[in-house]
């Protein structure tokens, strides 16, 4: 579990300082996961309001930031839950479609998976790479991305994700598979192989 723990205070600050103290960090935390500025702002506001109501539960063992991040995490899960209720889940036909995109009728790769040059994998911690990763994540359908975020960013166990999104294990597996196939290909096209072409050109 990861928290934006830059604030080390174990005492509770006054609510009218919260936006200054924690607003940006909570906003960033939310934005990486929900990807929409307006939604992230709304979730931060809801987090502060929930924190106000729950002030009595802050035991001072964790930092105030950690406590609020916990509330924020729940709000993000609530958002995914709501989004999941609002739309139809991807079904088996979409799964077949995905298979047809990447594999021929014999089940073999249509395009062989390229080797990623060491120079490009070593620069994966740079800001440029994050931007491409963001763009590739943005292309995923919401339901697929939300499942992937819960799994790969929040480290939530699969049973728990199924509960949050109200989907079956099979459906979750299909979504994560789709996310991984699409992200890998998108990163390959826009980062790993593009970087090589740039070097050669």
């Amino acid at each position, binding site marked *: 579990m990861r928290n934006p723990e830059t604030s080390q205070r174990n005492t509770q600050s006054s609510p009218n300082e919260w936006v200054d103290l924690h607003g940006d960090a909570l906003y960033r935390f939310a934005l990486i996961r929900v990807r929409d500025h307006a939604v992230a702002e709304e979730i931060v506001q809801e987090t*502060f309001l929930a924190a106000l109501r729950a002030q009595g539960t802050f035991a001072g063992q964790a930092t105030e930031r950690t406590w609020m991040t916990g509330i924020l995490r729940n709000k993000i899960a609530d958002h995914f839950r709501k989004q999941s209720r609002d739309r139809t889940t991807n079904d088996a036909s979409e799964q077949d479609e995905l298979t047809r995109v990447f594999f021929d009728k014999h*089940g*073999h790769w249509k395009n062989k998976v390229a080797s990623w040059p060491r120079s490009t994998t070593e620069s994966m911690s740079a800001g440029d790479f994050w931007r491409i990763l963001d763009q590739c994540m943005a292309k995923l359908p919401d339901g697929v991305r939300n499942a992937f975020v819960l799994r790969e960013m929040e480290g939530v166990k*699969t049973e728990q994700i199924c509960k949050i999104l109200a989907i079956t294990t099979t459906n979750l597996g299909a979504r994560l598979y789709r996310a991984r196939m699409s992200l890998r290909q998108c990163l390959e096209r826009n980062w790993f192989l593009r970087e090589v072409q740039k070097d050669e050109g």
Partner: protein
Amino acid sequence: MWRSIKMLLALKCDESTRLVSQSLDQNLPTLERWAVRLHAISCRSCRRFRHQTMLIRSAIQQRLDVESVTDVERTRLSDEASSRIATAVAENPSKDSS
């Protein structure tokens, strides 16, 4: 029995990648685990797929670590949003259940 032998010896790339993805979320049953391994011996694309998928996973983890320590991206709430949220907080004094 026949199904098991077929899976072990004739796993296709589409099935193999599906199982590789599944293995990142839960332990695979023994048969499936061996089927993926045997397939990978002769399939370079699937070996790369597995490696690259795990590389992406660790890159994301790395990003979250960096993000949690420094304000590396300089993303901030807009002034407009800050003041709107501050107002909402100020207008909602904590109430005991009433």
